[in-house]
């Protein structure tokens, strides 16, 4: 009798493994799991599209703190004065030291910030700029065709005339490229406006088509032709979406 009492572990007398409130936790865990997965996904999305990850809006340090704001809106220098290849080549081009020195042998001759430019000119060693708009090596972008098709500089580069230091405005991710390649007409404008920096939507593409009488430039028929072709074939599945357009 005594012995039985000592060694018996009847289930009826065993303490409960889980307390009562475990049920509540289990019920709460189901929505919590859903929420945390969503939060993780959203955090992931936030991170990869954050300006930290994409380096958008983050000015890149340069040897010479060149201000596009000063040179473009302050002095009114055309993009093509320095980026000479933009209409003819895949690469828009960066100015040779000689281009800088056309002015800076006369103005700001002793400015300390321009010392690297003067050194480059004196020693023949090129300036080294850090790339701001950098596509992966397997992407082949051509400036000249975009310019010719009426895609304005600011469509991709933003309001360069308001940037004291150059920074990217877009992620340059493939889906950003495809946004335009799938519906180019939204981003094309008259040839005459390609190098213009203005936020005024009145001058941009849609009204350009509406006010075609006032529009300068011979590229409008070409533009209309392109849009017409896209309308006929439908925006999707056009040649602009072929892999081989950008990858080779």
């Amino acid at each position, binding site marked *: 009798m005594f012995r039985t009492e000592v060694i018996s572990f009847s289930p009826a007398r065993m303490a409960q493994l889980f307390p009562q409130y475990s049920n509540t936790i289990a019920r709460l865990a189901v929505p919590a799991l859903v929420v945390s997965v969503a939060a993780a996904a959203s955090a992931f999305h936030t991170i990869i599209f954050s300006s930290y990850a994409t380096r958008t809006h983050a000015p890149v340090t340069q040897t010479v703190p060149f201000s596009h704001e000063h040179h473009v809106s302050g002095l009114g220098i055309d993009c093509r004065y320095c980026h000479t*290849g933009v209409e003819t080549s*895949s*690469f828009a081009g960066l100015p040779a030291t*000689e281009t800088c020195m056309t002015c800076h042998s006369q103005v700001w001759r002793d400015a300390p910030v321009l010392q690297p430019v003067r050194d480059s000119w004196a020693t023949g060693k090129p300036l080294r700029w850090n790339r701001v708009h950098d596509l992966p090596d397997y992407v082949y972008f051509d400036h000249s065709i975009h310019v010719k098709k009426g895609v304005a500089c600011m469509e991709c580069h933003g309001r360069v005339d308001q940037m004291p230091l150059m920074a990217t405005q877009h992620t340059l991710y493939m889906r950003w490229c495809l946004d335009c390649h799938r519906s180019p007409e939204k981003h094309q404008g008259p040839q005459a406006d390609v190098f213009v920096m203005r936020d005024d939507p009145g001058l941009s593409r849609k009204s350009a088509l509406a006010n075609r009488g006032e529009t300068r430039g011979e590229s409008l028929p070409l533009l209309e032709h392109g849009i017409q072709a896209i309308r006929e074939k439908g925006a999707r599945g056009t040649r602009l979406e072929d*892999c*081989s357009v950008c990858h080779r």
Partner: protein
Amino acid sequence: MKTPLPSMTRGDEFSEGASTWPSDVSRRRFLEIMAASLALGGAGACTRQPLEEIVPYVRQPEGLTLGRPLYFATAMELGGEGCGLLVRSDAGRPTKIEGNPEHPASLGGTNPQMQAALLTLYDPARSQTPLKAGVPSTWEDLLGALTRESARWALNKGAGLRLLTRRVGSPTLRAQIDQLLAKFPKARWHEHDPAFPRSPMPAELHLERARVIVSLDADIFGASALQPWRALSFARARQSEEEMPRLYVVESMPSLTGTMADHRRALRPADIVQFARQLVGTANGSPATDPWVAALVKDLQANKGRAVVVAGDFQPLAVHLAARAINEGLGNTGQTIVYPSAPAGRTADDLPSLCDAMKAGTVEALLIAGPNPVYDAPADLEFAAALATVPFTLHHGLYRDESARHCTWHLPESHFLEAWSDVTAYDGTPSIVQPLIAPLYPSKSLHELLAALFGDAVSSSYDLIHAAWAKRHAGEGFEPAWRRALHDGTWKSGEIPRAQPGPEPGVSVASSGAVSAVAAGALELIIRPDPFLLDGRFAENAWLQELPKPLTKMTWGNAVHLSPATAQRIGVVHGDLVELHHQNRVTEAPAWIHPGHADDCATIHLGYGRSSAGTVGTALGFDAFALQTSDRPWGGPGLEIRRTGRRHIFAVTQEHQSMEARDTARVEDIGHPAEEKEAPPSREETLYRNVKYTSPSWGMVIDLDSCIGCATCTIACQAENNIPVVGREQVMRGRVMHWIRVDSYADGAGERLRMLHQPVPCMHCENAPCEPVCPVGATVHDHEGLNVMVYNRCVGTRYCSNNCPYKVRRFNFLAFNDLETPQVAMMRNPEVTVRMRGVMEKCTYCVQRIRAVRIEADKESRAIRDGEVIPACAQACPTEAITFGDVLDPQSKVSALRQSPRHYALLAELNTRPRTTYLARRRNPHPDLG
């Protein structure tokens, strides 16, 4: 073989356990590893793009827009003759070599050596500094030594001074050598060019006028500066069916010319001499017992003045005299063949006389400029030993090769794309050799070195060439003429007078010496330059090493070639290592059983067995120079072959060369229409999406009738598309990367043997079997009909390659592309992605070129013109065998070719609807021979 054979079972590609899964793994361990892989893979993929720099010019050169290539005309010298080239320059770096359509030797075509010259320029193993006794030195030190030497030569009129060069094709260099020998009259000039020996009777061929061509072991389409011109002349002549030339070839070792023959006979060298004499006899009226010879002579006599008999450069004088006798007799001379008189000017002495002088101790200073005699001199000369007796030795060359190591001084030579020079073509047209880049290393051109001997150490190669042409140019306006010549690539106004037809030879066929008869059972040795490496000068060029050799498709090595019957007689099988005994000299070589090779003789190729070629070409194959003697440099009777009992594995890219009665590469006999082949059942019903393409819709037609199998397309594609080499071991594993291969087929036997070439790039099938099996959509069609390969999507399953019936897809099993060496990075085409490990790749129809043309056309709001897009293979092809264009444009050239009755698709029965299609080869047999 001196080196141990690489083993096929070497397991160092992957670390232990990486490719094979241990069998006793627990489920828990498996999950751990998978989770860790996923985490590492995910984390590893999250790298941010590294920051890059843009480095603009300080002063941007005029006319240069970064991102747009420029083309410059220049020329390459091969065997003392020039071929005009156009070289693409991307941001100041030469990146691709093309033929110059305005140059008479190129006509737009190139050959493998010209294409591969680019790799030599950027080869990191090139000599990079002057050396004195193997220790780095400077040009100034060498100059000091040369000044002391030349002061001595000035006193003794150059007694004891010797200059050794290859064949010289530069008029300015000839003038400089003349000047040197005028200043030091007792000095001597020697010439040594084992790949391009002087023919006993030089002749200029005009194949475009010939209707009957007889080759007596003349490899008309073999590697030389004339290859593109000769091949194109022949291909163009074949275009018309009525006027189609008939080619008879008598040769020992199957050559490119032999594969193009309508009638081919394999004879050993001794019998070729007999054959040539028999031919003269029959042509003179004695009855022919052999129907083959009778038909040939009948053909020759029916085409008087429009036939030509060509004797090979390696053939003895007797064969040349016989060929000339027939040509003179039929009035071919002056029409299809011109025998020029001996060129005016000084002729060089040969190599044996130099060795004699060295052994006699009369040579005090030797300048070796170009050749590599320590390696490439006949073995009996014992050049290295003789060289050791010379007090002052200077080697000038691209590499620190065997000869450089035996000379006191070594001076790096500037590559022809780095220094100015000039060269004349076969017809005397001069070209300026224009550099595209400043010398990468402190190197000098031979012009600069010779000028320094005259005390002018400051003039650059530009100054020397410019001054020489200013002197040569009579009359006003030199600068415009100079600029014109640089632009065009030829000097039109200042042609050097061509060689005039020479008198008939003083010796007759009969008196040309009896040819010793060789007993029927005895073996004869044949020594020839390698088809790609020539005498070994290109041994360090990995593109040429890995280029599958014509017919054998062997890479990274050489062999002793034997006919099947002879091999059976002496008990040798394919791949046996054998000992070759010839004139008391021995070397060991692997045996290659070669259908179409003449019986009772064996061919070996030069260019291998190098001991200091560099990092690529050293210790590959065996050295055929070890069996070469100066009295019989191209072989002779008295060869003995002994088995060693050991075996050799060749690195080949095509193991089986029979079509097994299928018609992969089709042939039609003219006058014997092929029996109506049953057309493959037309299958309109298919599971593939039926796409209606709009113009342009690209396609390619390859004319097998024009293709001579030279493999220029393969190497041009390699240069254009940044295709890596994989090395001998990887070739043996079947991992060669060429996007366009040249398949060869050899069916039949004896005089019925048919050897065919078939270039095979990606077919760009409309019903592409590779596409539906790709799990990630990395290979898809675009709207212009291209089967595109998207590298950044590819995960490397290799399903596509598995499903490709043409086997044209190539996989980066390892990191084949060298991403470290700066010179190699400079060489690359910036318009083509450099592929990483684990990525599939294949022919893209040169999509970068299509894109460039498309962008230009779009900018001008016009359609792409026919012929505007030229893929690299088509551009390089010397015979215009590859045509590319819009198959939906009825006016395009490619559409016209697709209408030809010779047009067919490879493996059409699979209903893949390939966009790359073929035109069947034609044979033009003599009616009497069938």
